[in-house]
């Protein structure tokens, strides 16, 4: 199998390399790619959508339909991981408790309902490590600012690099940081799987919903100009606001999906003990 693999790879590589000469030069401004359609975007984006960031303009308006399916791809991935990994909630589990004062650990086999933490005992993972003060305090300090930065990235998608996806990833990362620094259960207690499921479908629903709203208002699907009547502005500004609404939806979807995938992957579907 290995030799076959090597032969095909080398063959493909050589074949590609031979034809490299045919390609336009590296940064040639006159290459077909930069002279056919993209000049229109560069010149008319601001006039059409009042959004200086051309990438966001193309992303959410000219090729907004593509991006809707992009959000659907992320949503499908989240749903797929849930569908494949999630195990039914079996009650009986091996549960560990630790006495706060003395450090004695209890192991309860197939206990039914999991008892709450009390003054004396608190629940721990199987590979429990005493919390490190430095990690706990820095993460507790860091997470809010990470989230604020994410909101900044979301809001300024029009004027500076950024947008829905990037904001969603940063938000997701903040919660995952929480799950890693403490333990999965504390992160799950903050955001339950149910909210994640609903939030992720809600995010993409906002995106597709605005598109469908434009359809209902008589224009073509995802044509934010139709929202002018609702938003009370002229068509160009309506497009800019439409892009913002859509970016918010995407951020929501991306955040919840990333966390959802992390919950399932790290605990292999049981969602009780993470990494």
């Amino acid at each position, binding site marked *: 199998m290995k030799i076959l693999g090597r032969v095909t790879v080398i063959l493909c590589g050589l074949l*590609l390399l031979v*034809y490299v*000469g*045919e*390609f*336009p030069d590296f940064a040639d401004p006159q*290459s*077909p*790619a*930069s*002279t*056919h*359609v*993209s000049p*229109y*975007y560069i010149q008319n984006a601001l006039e059409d959508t009042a959004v200086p960031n051309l990438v966001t303009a193309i992303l959410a*308006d*000219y*090729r*907004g*339909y*593509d991006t809707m*399916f*992009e959000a*659907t*791809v992320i*949503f*499908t*991935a989240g*749903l*797929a991981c*849930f*569908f*494949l990994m*999630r195990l*039914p909630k079996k009650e009986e589990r091996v549960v560990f408790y630790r006495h706060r004062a003395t450090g004695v650990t209890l192991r309860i086999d197939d206990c039914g309902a999991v008892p709450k933490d009390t003054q004396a005992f608190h629940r721990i993972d199987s590979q429990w490590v005493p919390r490190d003060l430095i990690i706990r305090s820095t993460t507790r300090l860091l997470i809010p600012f990470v989230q604020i930065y994410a909101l900044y990235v979301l809001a300024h998608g029009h004027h500076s690099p950024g947008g829905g996806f990037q904001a969603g990833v940063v938000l997701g990362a903040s919660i995952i940081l929480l799950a890693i620094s403490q333990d999965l259960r504390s992160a799950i207690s903050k955001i339950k799987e*149910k909210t994640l*499921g*609903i939030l*992720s*479908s*809600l995010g*993409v*629903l906002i995106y*597709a*919903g605005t*598109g*469908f709203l434009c*359809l209902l208002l008589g*224009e*073509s*699907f*995802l*044509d*934010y*100009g139709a929202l002018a009547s609702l938003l009370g502005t002229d068509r160009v500004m309506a497009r800019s606001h439409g892009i913002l609404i859509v970016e918010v939806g995407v951020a929501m979807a991306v955040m919840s999906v990333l966390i959802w995938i992390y919950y399932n992957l790290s605990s292999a579907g049981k969602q009780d003990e993470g990494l």
Partner: protein
Amino acid sequence: MLNTFPAIIIVVPLLAALLIAGISFIDRRACFPIGVAALLISFAGAVAMLVNVVSTGVAMEYRFGGWAGPMGIVYVIDHLSALVLVVITGIALVNLVSSRQTIIDELKEKDGAFVALYLLFTAGLVGMTATGDAFNLYVLLEITSLSGYALIGLGSERAPLASLKYLFLGTIGATFYLVGVGYLYIATGSLNMVDLATIIPGLMDSGVILFAFIFCMTGLFVKMAMFPVHGWLPGAYSEASSPAAGLIAPLTTKVMIYILIRICLSVFSVEYVFANLDVGQIMVWLAIATIVFGSVSALAQTNYRRMLTYIIIAEVGYMVGGFFLGNKMGMSGAMLHIVNDAVMTLCLFMVAGIVVNRMKTDDRDGFKGLFRSMPFTMAGFVLAALSIIGVPPTCGFFSKWYLILGGVAAGNYWFVAALIFSSLVNAVLFFRLFEIAYFEPFGDDHHGESPGAGAVGIKEAPMIMLLPFLAVSFLLIVLGVYSGRIVTNIIYFAIPGGII
């Protein structure tokens, strides 16, 4: 209203899928009805568009976001895509309705997620068929693949491994297609298919376009499981749960072939593919190899569904070979076979679903004595088998009719021989099954009223599975009888002028 249908048939299932996924966390009973309603709307829209396109003779166009041509994304619904859309939405609807019981039994809490993924898969296929933008096709290809990996992943004990292999090869195929689109974009600067079709004739001899063609073709061949790169299909389709297999098996490879035809005809024009590159001959030989390989390895299988997967690979060879014959008969045979083969495969996989539901095994021995205990199912099964073998008046015969005529017209008698060989092998395959169902268990009771249908008791499948199945098997005959009209009124419009 009608001109918004190209958007509605894809957005409605998408919105429904999102709704279902959300609601499945609140209360799962509502998921199934919403799914069926969404597919019903989508199917009705597709039929309305087909009727409109056939009656007006003009392709429907839909601009997303209001942007025209190369700037935005445009959907084009012409004769062939409308026909394929009807097939996709119809089969998805019938399969969902008929596998309601299996979904509830096998996937207890996850039925909401299943229906959502089911709808996303269908929306992806619908989008791929209707899209007029090369990159949008890649995104939809990925949605279909991802939901396909998930649907297949939750099946029998070996399903995750098969799905993972499918994922690896599927990603290679999709990425090759993406590189192909990249090469096209570098050479022409546009992603819109109509726009590409105007620019490419000017660059006939450029190597970049040649490599774009090679990459797109390899990508699609991997995704439709042509002979050398078919490794993923047998495992994926036979290990999946029966509702998932009932959806994925009949549709994926056929839509991939539709995309192959769409790209060869509307993007790289006919002159480029057949005259400039003259690639027809090699592709037909590749198709012959696929047919022979598929048929021969189907003989060696004992598991019924695994045997079907190899037959699917052989059928892919029919369609690709028919298309690359390059004459009118061959192409119309290939296009007609997309429709016929989808319906036939759905019928056969519904039989697998019913047998697994009743006999708990999809091995060949599960068929013992079925003629006596499940006469109606076996009647439909015989009809589907006859259609695969190619016996008139079923539709399988008539698509072979066009394919063989195309082969004879092109003077490619090896392709005709491969078709005949494959029909004979199919005959052996299915009559082997009939023997098991008819003879075994060997009753030594020659005389006396043997346990007739009454005594052993007809243990038929539940009505909700049986009625759609019988309707589909009857559809095989209706499609067969109307195949002449389908070809003259719909498919001949899809073949460009340059083909005699």
